[in-house]
Each structure stands twice: as C-alpha cells, then as structure tokens.
C-alpha cells in the first residue's frame, strides 16, 4: 500500500504547488540548470544492493522505501519529472573517489561527519536516527538494559558506519569489536556466536532483526549521547558541486514547508522506531 500513498502525495502536491518553475517539461528548474551531469536529467546513486527499509526490493525506481521516496521528492522539488530521474548504483568507494562522478548525488545512509566534509560535500540531513543493538534472543546480550552491563559482550558493526565509533566511544567494551562489510556477514557472525550483538542505526536494526536474522531482536536503542551525536544522513556530492544548494533548498522545503519528509518517514519508517531505550550508565 505504501507505493500508492507515495504517488498520491505527489499528485496532491503538484496540484497545490505555487512556486513557479518549468515543470511543464520536468527537466529541472533555474537553480539546477547546467549543474546536472546530464542536461535535463537528475542522476541519483544508491547502494548495490540497496537495503530495506531504505529502498524496497532493491528497486528505487518503484519509489518504495524511505530513500527512494525522498529522492523522488527532492527531484520533484527541483522540477524533474519521474522519467527524468536516472538511477545508478555505486559502492561506498566510488562515492568518495576523487575523479569525476557518475551521479549528481548519492544517498545510501551516508552519515554527515566533519571528517568527511574535507573530501565530499553533503546536503542538509534528510534523516536523523540513533544507534540500536541487535542480538540473538537467547544470547548473552538479551535483557541488558544499560551500557555498563554490556562491557563484557563481544560487539560487531558494519564497516564505514558511525556504529563502530559509537561502540568504541560510548559502549567501550572490554574486547575489540569485529567489523563486517555488510549485514550478511554480521548475521553469520551472530549465528556462529562469534559476536553477541551488532550495532546498527535504528531503522536498519529493526528491519534486520525482523526480517533478516532469524531469532534475533533489537535489544534496545541508545539515547542521543553527547559523545556521539545523532546519526544524520545526508546526500553525497562531488566536492563543491553547486547542485547541493538546489538540493538543500528542496530538502528544507520538504522539511519545513510541505512536511513531506515527515510523511515519507511515517510511511516507510514508522514500523521501525519502537525499541526499549538503553541507559548510558
């Protein structure tokens, strides 16, 4: 049903849109003119594969999934019609390499951090979340309610996420965490009992425990901490790509004016927010 509601929203918005632009052709607005990779097209990159709940069924063209919907929302704000949105797939490395990029922007849960800003340009955040831990229901991690009870656990995390930082800075376990390329490996490690728990952003954690890792559950989510702030996801641009301003404008409109971001979030992520909060003591 999610797909329908998304397209309904779009139709409704188009009808009430007052900002003047050349939506007639759907090839961008004044802001984007001359700034996109291919004139009149918006090339958006996502992961390969793209994971739920961010993109449903690894098919962003369907507009299903949180990031897919956000991408189309932004495209529309910038005056691109659906058929002028082109999807490409990249790994993390291609997103940050110094050469010419093959996308206008890239969204696959990139956390906005100061360190990265030296080499890529981020959009305004389109989503903020916090960390959560997933463990097997019968594991040593189950039932833990505060961080101090978790120091003896063996943790795992995905490489390239802020979760790893979170483990070392906030949880500070007694043994070094293990790191995996993706949740397939993390899952296998859980099953092999090589780790007791893995740390993920909350929506991913909820999805993974519900769908991907049999017998696992989200043991808890962490409150936003001072050491590691909320995980803010932003779109990645080639360094100093001027298009970022158009996207930022689109995002702020979606956030503050049309509240579309909230509605997209409710559609795709509402099922993925509830979990007990773990005390940081």
């Amino acid at each position, binding site marked *: 049903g999610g797909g329908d509601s998304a397209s309904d929203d779009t139709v409704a918005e188009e009808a009430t849109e007052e900002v003047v632009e050349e939506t007639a052709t759907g090839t961008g607005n004044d802001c984007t003119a001359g700034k996109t990779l291919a004139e009149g097209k918006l090339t958006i990159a996502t992961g390969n*594969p793209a994971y739920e709940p961010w993109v449903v069924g690894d098919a962003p063209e369907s507009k299903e999934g949180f990031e897919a919907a956000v991408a189309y929302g932004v495209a529309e704000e910038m005056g691109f019609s659906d058929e002028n949105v082109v999807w490409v797939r990249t790994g993390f*490395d*291609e997103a940050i*390499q110094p*050469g*010419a990029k093959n996308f206008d922007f890239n969204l696959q849960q990139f956390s906005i951090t100061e360190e990265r800003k030296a080499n890529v340009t981020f959009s305004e955040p389109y989503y903020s979340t916090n960390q959560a831990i997933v463990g097997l229901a019968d594991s040593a991690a189950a039932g833990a309610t505060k961080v101090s009870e978790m120091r003896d656990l063996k943790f795992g995390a995905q490489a390239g996420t802020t979760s790893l930082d979170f483990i070392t800075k906030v949880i500070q376990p007694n043994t070094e965490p293990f790191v995996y390329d*993706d*949740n*397939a490996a993390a899952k296998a490690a859980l*099953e092999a009992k090589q780790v007791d728990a893995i740390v993920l952003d909350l929506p991913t954690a909820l999805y993974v425990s519900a769908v991907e890792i049999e017998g696992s559950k989200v043991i808890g989510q962490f409150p936003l901490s001072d050491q590691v702030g909320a995980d803010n996801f932003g779109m990645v641009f080639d360094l100093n790509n001027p298009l970022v301003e158009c996207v930022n404008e689109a995002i702020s409109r979606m956030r503050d004016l049309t509240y579309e971001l909230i509605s997209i979030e409710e559609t795709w992520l509402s099922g993925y927010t509830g979990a007990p909060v773990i005390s940081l003591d």
Partner: protein
Amino acid sequence: MVLVAVVLLVPRMPRWDRVKKSFFDVDQMRDSFPRLIDAFWLDVKIFAWTTPAIFVLALLIALARNSRSPALFPLRALAAAYTDVMRGVPVILWIYLVGFGVPGLGLERPYNSPLLWGSVALGMTYSGYVAEVFRAGIDSVHESQRAAARSLGLSSAQTMRFVVLPQAVRRVVPPLLNDLVSLQKDVALVSLIGPIEILRQAGIDKAKFANFTPYVVAALIFLAVTIPLTRLTDYLWQRERRRTSGTRVAA
C-alpha cells in the same frame, strides 16, 4: 579418508541445517546462477586482455633483471624496484590508486573508464609476480647451456629465446598457473571501482539475501573453468617431460 569422515560427520553437527541454508541453499543457487554467469563474462574479458600484456611485460622485466652487462646496472636496479613495489603494495591499493587516481586527474570519458584503469592496475601488479617466476626459471637453467649456445654464435637474445627460455618456462609451469589462477580471481578486485563482475555480483546477492550461497555458485563457476584448464596444462606438461627425459628412477 579425512574426506569421507568430513562428508559423513558434518551433516550430523547440531547446527548443520543453519550452515547449509547459509551456504548451500538450492533455491538461492537457481536464482543467482544466471546473474552470476552474466557477470562472469566480464571477468573473462578482463582476464583475456590483461593476461597477454602481463606475460609480455613480465618477460621484459625478467630479462632486464637477468641482463649481465655491467653497464646495464641501472636497468637491473629499476626492474628489481619495479617488482618490489608492484608486489609489495596490495593489489587493492593499486586498483584504487590507478583506477580512481588516474581518471581522477581529469581524464574524460571514455578514457577514465574504471575497466581500463582497473585492468592497468592488475597488469602492473601481476607483471611483478610473473616476472619473478620467469626469473626463477631463467636462473635455474645451467650456465653450461648458455655457454654452448653462445659458443655456436647465437646472440644473447637468441640464446635466451631458443635455449634458455624454453627450458625455463617448462620448469615454472606450475607457478605460472598459480599466478594465472589468482589473477583470474583478482580480476574481481576491479569491481571495487565500479564494474560488476562475478564476485561483486555474488557479494551483492549475498548482501541482498543475507546468504552466502551466491559465493558458492561463483566458486563453482570458477572451478568449472580452472580445473579443466589446469588438468589439461598439467597433462601436456608431464607428457612433454616424459617425452624428452631419460629413465625415471621408479622407486
């Protein structure tokens, strides 16, 4: 015997079902196979065009390292430095450095193709490895063979070509096959910079289905290619050895 034990015992292990589902899921196999075969085609292509380049380059480097004129000392030192650096730096880094770095300098399409520069990176690294194999072969040919060839008036190039190299290559067929087999698999690293070949496709499927079966399928595809090839080479090699050699000491 060990094999039999493994085959019999493993399925009795308490969590064998889980492992089986993770690595040997038949439905998953059926599903992944066509995509993987498709992706494998790219491996074959990269392999096909890098291999000849690697062999030529490696041979040149081995010859340079084997040059004997005192005047050519810088050449020898350069060749040694080349192999050291090519082998010493992880392939991954060459792929990043050349595959992202060179196009990053501002080359336009199609000259910034990751396929092109990824292959160049592979060629650079592997020529270092293969050169060392050639060098070992060349050095293992007894000095008296060169003496005989040179005394007949063959130039040092002709001596190399007709007398030393044929004997050298015969001696290093197994390590050469080693390098070909690992090249075939390191082709996969080109996928780090974009192009989707079989291992990347397997990785994608693995991540998508949280199941390692696609890797197993990929491995089977690799095996289906390498085993017949190595068996054939080995057979030809042994036959050649038998044909030219004297009596083998049986026991």
